[in-house]
């Protein structure tokens, strides 16, 4: 897939929470390139004194008809804080689309898309694409508390949503891995979230004999396979998460 360096206009900065913003972006003078679910973009941060590199951010949603790209940004440090300060009309520069992507299943079946915290981001677009292609995905969203369950209404438009919160303020109380949804059988579980959560979900998947694909977010510099910094140790040795990932079948990993 051809990659681009494009300036985007911030159309909306929807503050979901102290820590999260949904940035809705539209490319300036250009059509949105083809972007597949699970891919990411590299965002230049021009308004932080202490941020040098781009920040890799998952594609949350793509609206080709409106020429809009959604990015869900979590305040993790100075770089993402600066992105949260962006106002409508501001410009942000992106390199995109990057990485591999979720592949449409060959057969119909039961698919669970699990996201923890800001890891829900890629699942929205992936759910939409599955739905458009005749699949009926279900979602499993986990977070600390009800207010950290992001974009719930968007997910509900696409399919059934299972929820776990650590404090029980929404859905089932406890970690996602304990959600009763994981007692069902699935043909594939897709998962994105903090590493411990993904490892736990992968373990559950293995126990119930289900394939599992996870989206890794190793620290990276270039996002293009040049710097070799974001490697994951796989059964094939060290591979770049930015080009051979971010999506890996857990069978490929050495977890």
């Amino acid at each position, binding site marked *: 897939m051809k990659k681009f*360096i494009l300036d985007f206009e911030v159309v909306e900065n929807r503050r979901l929470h102290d820590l999260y913003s949904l940035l809705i972006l539209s490319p300036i003078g250009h059509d949105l390139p083809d972007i597949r679910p699970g891919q990411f973009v590299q965002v230049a941060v021009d308004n932080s004194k202490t941020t040098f590199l781009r920040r890799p951010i998952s594609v949350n949603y793509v609206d080709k008809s409106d020429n809009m790209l959604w990015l869900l940004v979590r305040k993790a440090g100075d770089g993402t804080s600066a992105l949260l300060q962006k106002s409508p009309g501001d410009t942000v520069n992106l390199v995109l689309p990057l990485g591999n992507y979720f592949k449409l299943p060959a057969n119909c079946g039961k698919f669970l898309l699990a996201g923890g915290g800001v890891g829900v981001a890629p699942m929205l677009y992936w759910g939409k694409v599955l739905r458009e292609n005749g699949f009926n995905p279900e979602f499993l969203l986990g977070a600390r508390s009800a207010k950290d369950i992001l974009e719930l209404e968007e997910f509900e438009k696409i399919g059934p949503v299972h929820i776990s919160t650590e404090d029980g303020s929404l859905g089932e109380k406890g970690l996602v891995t304990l959600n009763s949804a994981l007692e069902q059988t699935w043909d594939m579980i897709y998962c994105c979230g903090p590493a411990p959560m993904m490892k736990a979900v992968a373990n559950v998947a293995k126990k119930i004999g289900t394939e599992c694909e996870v989206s890794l977010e190793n620290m990276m510099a270039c996002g293009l396979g040049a710097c070799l910094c974001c490697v994951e140790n796989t059964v094939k040795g060290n591979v770049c998460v930015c080009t051979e990932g971010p999506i890996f079948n857990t069978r490929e990993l050495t977890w």
Partner: protein
Amino acid sequence: MVNLNVNIANLQLKNPVLTASGTFGYGEEFSDFIDLNRLGGFIVKGTTLNHREGNPYPRMAETPSGMLNAVGLQNKGVDYFIDNIYPRIKHLDTHVIVNVSGATIDDYVAVCEKLAPLDKINAIEVNISCPNVKQGGMAFGTTCSGAAEVTKAVRRAFPKTLIVKLSPNVTSIADIAKAVEAEGADSVSLINTLLGMAIDVERRRPYLSTVTGGLSGPAVRPVAVRMVWQTAHAVNIPVIGLGGIMNGRDALEFMMAGASAVEVGTANFIDPAITVKIIDEITEYCERHGISDINEIVGII
């Protein structure tokens, strides 16, 4: 019309802009963004005799105006390069320069001997300064005798343009440069990364799996420019300058300090099209200042 041609010994470059090894893959990673043929040349990832897995993750930490890396020469080995990568890039209308690393003199020589017959490879850059592997050459690169020893051996094995990449982690880089010049190097490139370190104080552990790593980016540029200036005044062979070049101004700074050509490194991570922008900015500067030949400003400081 500004003449941007520069020569590194027998190597004629259409312009002075090269890419730094390890920051530009094998060129292909950047072909969506730029026409590779516009470059003076590009220097491919450090290549060793055998396949290397490199260091464990994490290998990178962002630092003020820079980054630390500890990749550790991950590459598939020279044979894989020759069989699988070289055929894909040999048609390009730009110089492909291979960066060569090794743990022993014999390793260096073996890699050079394999590269020498390749028509498209008119130059190599011998890395005696990788800080990220125990045997990555930095031991060679921090003494005059070690640097001379490697240079002497690879000089015999590689008859075309031989560039030696120097470590900045030394008291006198000019002395090291003189030592490799005396053994027949055609050019020196500098600086490789400065050895650095960063600690995650919340987790009370180093950010890098290897504890220390190589610092690059604009943070190091003042040190790099100084070393280029000192070296250019000490040797008679052309100097290639690198270290934190982010734009045309920075490239010109190195050339005024004495570099005949420059390598763009970390900037490729931030703007994958930066190399051609730098060529354009150098051209624009020369036009604005009435400079008809870029060589006029090399070493004017």
